[in-house]
């Protein structure tokens, strides 16, 4: 009898068996799991009393009202503002991710000066005084050399008080080159101006329409004010019908009641085909057309010359069988679409592809607008209205000196407003080509960029980079280390939207005119300054006439001055209603020469005087590349889960992306299984995608929802700057496409490019 090793093992077994009959293992398991949730080294924001601040999101022009929850002085959550008239308490994923812009790692924390080569990423922190004097020093130098017109400023928007301030600065300085990046509003505005004689944004009253015919518009993918559209979708019952015409089964097409696949780039022809059926079968609104429209019937001008009207053009050239040939939409479907549209009580037609990053073809936009006129829904509830620019931003005239006056007489560098493009206001996409094709000195000697990221958003990234290389002085006012900022010489970082004041004019695409006020929700996190303040400080440093144009202490004083009638309400509620189209009598709505809606827009540039070039017509927008070597067509698509514009996708949103869109660092392009089979490819194959403008390595995702012969690629990847959370994920679509000029307007109408895929 001995106490040996086995006795102790037995003791241990006894302890273990015994413990299972006690609460110890069960209670400890529970406690340990809770303990792991509260590890002291897990970062948790400090606790404290909470509070809410209302503001307006400015991450896109949608202008949604937001409510920011704060714990002490830290913002912890952004939600929709229930009482906001546009967004009605909804918010898109980008808005919800807004805090990642405030606290994220890609922010520029202080003014910087480049010390290495451009784009090398070597920076030196400088003081604000040094930064401002560096910029004004260069601007003064150019003015002294009588070259103020070689300065250009690319600003994110042309509406609201900040763009006005920049415009005022350039005017006093002597440069005509205030340029805004392209958007679908360019085409809408131009169509409304030509056909209705009204200046302003175009609003679509989808809330009150009962039949929405969308020509590829990403209504539920971030178009207009995304939260507004989500709210409409959420409240949609059987009383509203959505029809989506698009070459790809997009999220909008999937949510719509009907998806009509179409050959890409032929949407304008289908609109005219639908117009044909409506006219042939007398399904159009005769009361409106006969009383309020001009150019529908053939007409004779003062010199006795006969002109063709819209009716005869459409009846002659756009019979359904002809349109079916062009669009590959079957003839009975065209007739059905027309009858559905015409017989609805409040039909509305919307044009512009995806979220509306590009203007597209002016003819296409006018053809769709003509459908609205045929339905008689112009300036009607549930129809299309032109929302005039708010008149709150009015200031004393600017006095300018001789240098400025001479500078302003120069043509704009982008060619907008020239004899060739008399109707266009901004043509930023032309800038790289203009600079690259100029021999000798660049026509732009100094480029200032605020709220924009042309090196990412402009088509043909290589050409844009080459153009920037030729510009000797490049300044970015970006809050983030984006592509353009990281390629510039100086960065004068702006506050982000949760740190500063700015006004938000009526969101494009909406009808109810409303101004929003974006307010500081938290103290500025870093040593940044609002661009508005910088413009005034730069003007003061420039002295003389430029300084005299700015009587305000800072941007906030200027803003308060501009919004004086609305300020108190804006401060309190975050938004204020202003006068809109419903306040203008119907008889005063058309400011064309005829005082009517013009199917035949007499203000349209008619260099060769052909009626067909003036009427809304279908001219197929050319596509770059030879079909022999490049058998496929590459088109972009937008997703509400991806920020495709100048702003980088926040990590919250990247997390929501499907693994058939992005896996690890590689982006997928969608291809029809039939096309893939014919070319010998399978799901997930890694391939080289090449276009005339560039090539990239991608993976294939087989998807029946894309037309055969078409490959579709998401917009918003392939950033080369920002932080490690965004850099080198996928491919930038703009790297693979170039601009295609709409011959009538000069706007960028590119909708796709020829492409090929080969084994990587």
């Amino acid at each position, binding site marked *: 009898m001995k106490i040996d090793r086995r006795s102790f093992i037995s003791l241990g077994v006894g302890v273990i*068996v015994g413990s299972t009959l006690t*609460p110890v293992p069960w209670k400890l398991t529970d406690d340990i799991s809770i303990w792991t949730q509260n590890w002291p080294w897990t970062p948790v924001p400090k606790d404290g009393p909470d509070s809410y601040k209302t503001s307006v999101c400015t991450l896109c022009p949608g202008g949604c009202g937001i409510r920011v929850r704060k714990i002490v002085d830290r913002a912890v959550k952004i939600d929709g503002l229930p009482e906001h008239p546009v967004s009605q308490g909804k918010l898109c994923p980008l808005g919800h991710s807004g805090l990642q812009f405030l606290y994220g790692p890609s922010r520029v924390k202080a003014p910087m000066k480049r010390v290495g080569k451009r784009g090398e990423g070597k920076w030196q922190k400088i003081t604000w005084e040094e930064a401002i004097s560096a910029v004004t020093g260069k601007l003064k130098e150019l003015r002294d050399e009588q070259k103020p017109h070689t300065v250009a400023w690319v600003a994110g928007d042309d509406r609201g008080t900040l763009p006005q301030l920049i415009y005022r600065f350039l005017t006093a300085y002597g440069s005509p080159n205030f340029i805004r990046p392209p958007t679908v509003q360019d085409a809408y505005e131009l169509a409304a101006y030509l056909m209705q004689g009204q200046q302003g944004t175009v609003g679509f009253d989808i809330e009150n329409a009962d039949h929405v015919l969308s020509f590829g518009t990403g209504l539920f993918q971030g178009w207009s004010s995304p939260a507004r559209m989500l709210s409409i979708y959420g409240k949609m019952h059987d009383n509203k019908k959505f029809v989506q015409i698009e070459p790809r089964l997009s999220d909008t097409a999937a949510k719509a009641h009907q998806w009509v696949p179409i050959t890409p780039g032929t949407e304008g022809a289908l609109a005219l085909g639908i117009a044909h059926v409506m006219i042939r079968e007398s399904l159009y609104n005769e009361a409106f057309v006969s009383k309020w429209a001009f150019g529908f019937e053939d007409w004779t001008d003062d010199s006795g010359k006969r002109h063709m009207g819209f009716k005869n053009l459409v009846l002659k050239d756009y019979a359904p069988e002809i349109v079916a040939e062009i669009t590959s939409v079957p003839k009975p479907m065209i007739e059905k679409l027309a009858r559905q549209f015409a017989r609805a009580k409040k039909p509305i037609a919307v044009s512009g592809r995806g979220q509306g990053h590009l203007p597209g073809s002016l003819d296409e936009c006018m053809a769709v607008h003509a459908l609205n006129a045929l339905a008689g829904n112009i300036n009607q509830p549930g129809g299309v209205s032109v929302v005039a620019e708010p008149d709150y931003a009015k200031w004393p005239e600017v006095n300018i000196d001789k240098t400025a006056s001479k500078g302003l007489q120069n043509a704009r560098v982008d060619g907008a407003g020239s004899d060739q493009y008399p109707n266009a206001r901004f043509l930023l996409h032309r800038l790289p080509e203009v600079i690259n094709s100029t021999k000798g000195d660049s026509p732009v000697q100094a480029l200032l960029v605020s709220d924009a990221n042309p090196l990412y958003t402009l088509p043909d990234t290589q050409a844009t980079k080459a153009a920037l290389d030729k510009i000797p002085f490049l300044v970015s006012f970006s809050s983030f280390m984006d592509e353009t900022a990281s390629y510039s010489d100086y960065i004068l970082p702006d506050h982000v939207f949760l740190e500063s004041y700015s006004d938000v004019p009526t969101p494009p695409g909406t009808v109810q005119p409303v101004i929003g006020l974006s307010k500081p929700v938290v103290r500025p996190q870093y040593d940044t300054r609002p661009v508005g303040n910088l413009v005034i400080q730069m003007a003061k440093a420039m002295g003389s006439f430029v300084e005299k144009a700015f009587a305000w202490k800072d941007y906030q004083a200027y803003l308060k001055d501009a919004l004086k009638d609305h300020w108190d309400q804006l401060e309190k509620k975050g938004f204020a209603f202003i006068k809109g189209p419903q306040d203008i009598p119907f008889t005063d709505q058309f400011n064309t020469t005829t005082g009517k809606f013009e199917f035949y827009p007499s203000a349209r540039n008619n260099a060769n005087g052909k009626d067909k070039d003036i009427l809304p017509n279908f001219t197929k927008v050319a596509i770059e590349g030879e079909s022999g070597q490049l058998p496929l067509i590459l088109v972009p698509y937008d997703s509400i889960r991806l920020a495709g514009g100048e702003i980088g996708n926040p990590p919250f949103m990247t997390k929501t992306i499907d693994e058939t869109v992005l896996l690890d660092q590689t982006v997928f392009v969608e291809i029809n299984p039939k096309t893939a089979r014919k070319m010998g490819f399978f799901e997930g194959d890694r391939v080289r995608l090449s276009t005339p403008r560039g090539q990239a390595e991608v993976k294939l995702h087989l998807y029946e929802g894309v037309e055969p012969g078409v490959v579709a690629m998401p917009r918003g990847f392939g950033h080369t700057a920002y932080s490690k959370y965004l850099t080198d994920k996928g491919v930038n679509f703009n790297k693979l496409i170039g601009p295609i000029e709409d011959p009538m307007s000069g706007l960028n109408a590119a909708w796709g490019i020829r492409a090929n895929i080969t084994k990587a």
Partner: protein
Amino acid sequence: MNTNDQQHPASHPASPESGDAPEKRSNGSGWFILLFFIIGFIGSVLSGWLLFPNMLYSEKEQPIDFNHELHMGVVYEGCQSCHYFRSDGSFSGIPDLYSCSGCHQFVQGTDPEEEKFVNEYVLPNKEVPWLVYSKQPDCVFFSHAAHVKGAGMDCKTCHGDIGHSTHSRPYQENRLTGYSRDIWGYNIARLGEAKHGMRMKMNDCADCHEKETGHKGYCFQCHQ
């Protein structure tokens, strides 16, 4: 496995004597093994039931010994005088210093606890670090309005008859999780009536919901 089974009968008859010796040895120490097993078993069971619950919790005193009964006698609206709903529907929970200093700007009585409260917290304007018996993790969303206003429940259903207590009882903190012993319940086996109001683990919420509403509730109702 199969090969082993076949080898055993083959090897056994080969050495019949050698098989006896280990059998004897195991008989001899077998009692010890059993004894040790029983010692381990009983020791483990006893300490698991008697020692463990006391070792798991540390005991802390509240910073101020608060007398609910005394306060209930001088306020007009019962519990709601201090624990009220704000206009936005949120619940004030533990009153902040501002609410208390309305009356206790200066020492009013002779209670040393009140003197301590005024001198250590009111005058230096420092919030009292009350230890909250019902504190839940951050991942739990709980609405007082839904229970008190919506379902018309009494405070004491969950919190016990705390409104008539004359002293703050010690706060027993779970050494691992940091939460109060009240959450799990004083009985380590979670048997019988809870000592102070209601136990507040997730299953307790679910049980009550099932009893009262017929459904345990959905995940996102509390884990928002």
